C-alpha cells in the first residue's frame, strides 16, 4: 500500500473522491461502483471501489488518521 494524494469533494454530507495522484500521474475518477467498510480489529476503513476508465482501484480511507492508501490497482 502506498501513500499518495486524493482530491475529494463533500456532496450531501458524503465524501466523494474525484481524482488521485499516483506515481506522478493524475487519474480522474469516472465512477464509483461500490463503497463499503472494512474492519481490521477495531480499525475501520472506508473503501471506495473506483473506475478511472483504464483501471479499477480501491481507495482506502483509514478512519482513525484520515489517510488514504491505494489498494488493488487492476488495469482493465
Amino acid at each position: 500500500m502506498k501513500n499518495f494524494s486524493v482530491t475529494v469533494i463533500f456532496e450531501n454530507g458524503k465524501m466523494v473522491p474525484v481524482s488521485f495522484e499516483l506515481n506522478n500521474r493524475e487519474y480522474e475518477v469516472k465512477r464509483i461502483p461500490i463503497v463499503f467498510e472494512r474492519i481490521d480489529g477495531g480499525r475501520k476503513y472506508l473503501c471506495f471501489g473506483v473506475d478511472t476508465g483504464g483501471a479499477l482501484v480501491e481507495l482506502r480511507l483509514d478512519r482513525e488518521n484520515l489517510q488514504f492508501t491505494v489498494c488493488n490497482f487492476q488495469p482493465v
Partner: protein
Amino acid sequence: MKTIMHVDMNSYFATAEQQANPYLRGRPIGIIKGRTGLPAGRQGCIIAASVEAKRFGVKTGSTVWEAKQKCPQIILVPSDMDKYFALTKRMISIISHYSPTIEIFSIDEAFLDVTDTQKIFAGGAWEIALEIKNKIKIEMGEWMKCSIGISYTKLLAKLASEMQKPDGLTFLGPEDYLQKTQNIAVEEICGIGMARTRYLHDRGVFKLGQARKLELPPEIADLVWLKNEEQLTTVDDLDPAKSVGRTFTAFSMLDTQSSILKLVRNLIEETAAKLREMGMGGRTLYLTLNPSPNLGEGHYTKTLKDPVCDPQVIFDLLSREYLKNPVVGIRKAGVNISNLAFSVQRSVFDKREKVLRVVDEVNEKYGLFTAYPASLLGGELIRPEMTGFLGDKWYRFGS
C-alpha cells in the same frame, strides 16, 4: 394469518463482484476462495457462480476444473468477504425500515414479518417488496438484485422467492399454493435433504405433485404438503454462541509436525482472540487434522475444569495431545472451543492477563495481528474470515 417475506440476494458474491467491477457485468464469473494464479487443480472449488456462469451449468461447489470444462471463458475472482458482509449490513439496514421482526437467515437471505407493518403502506406487502427492491438498487448498487417471496409461512415464503430468479417477486397464497408448487422438485424443499430425496426418488417421486399422491411418513408428508409453521428467530431470540471454531485448508500438503503446529497456533490465536472479544472462555478444546484419505484422521481433545481464553495455554494443551499421536501429510486443520462461559476470571497474580489485554488493545487500534507470537514469524498469517452461514450473528447483530 401472518405475512412473511423472504428476501434472497441473487448469486450474491458474484453479483457483488460485478457491482464492484463493471467490466465483469454480463460475463460468466466464478468466485473462488483464496488466490488466483494457482494451477486449476489446486484452486479448489467455485463458492459462488454468476447468473451468466449458471447458464453454462456451473454451480456452487463445482471444482474449478469442472467449471472450466463447462464454461472455458469463466473468469475466476478471489472472494472478498469484507465486501460481502458490508453489503449484507446495508441490506439489513434497508429491510429493517419495514419491520422490527427480522430473521437474518444467512449472509444473503433474511425473513421479515410484515403482518402489522404492511398496514402502513397503501399497497401492502407488494409495495414493501417493490420498495425494498428499489432501495437495494439505489443503496447497494444498480447491479444488485434480489428475489422476494411473500406468503404466510417461512417455508412458503422461501419457496416463493426461489420460484422466480433473478429479480423475482412471487406471492403464494393459501388458496393457490398447492397448485403453484406441484411442479417443484422435492429436493428444493428446505428440510428434504439427500436421504429423504433418495427415499422419494426410489418410489418414482420427483415433483411435489407426485409426492402428494403417496402415503408418506408424517415428517416427510408435512414437508411435501408444506405444512411447516415455524416462527421467525430474531437476533433477540438467539442464544449466545455455544462454541467458537476456525478451520483452514492449506494450499499445499503440510508434511512436517512443525508446519502443522504453526498452522494450529495461528488458528488458536484467532479463536482465542474471538473468545476474548466476546468476553468468554471455553472448557473443551478440540483439534481436528484431516490427512490425506489413505492415512485416517487425527482428532485431539482436552476438557478442563475451568474455562480458558489464553492462546498459549490452549496451544500447550492441544499440542501435547497432538504429539502423543501425531499425523502429518494434512491439508486441513480445525480448532474448536466449546463449553463456553462468560466472564472468565484469571488469577489476580497472573501477569499474562495484562499481556493479553495489551495485545488486544494494540490489535484493536492498529489492526488484527499487529502484535502476535514470535512463533508465527516467517510465514503467511491466516486471517479470520466469516462464512456465508454467519454462525456468530448473535454476536455480530445483537445489541
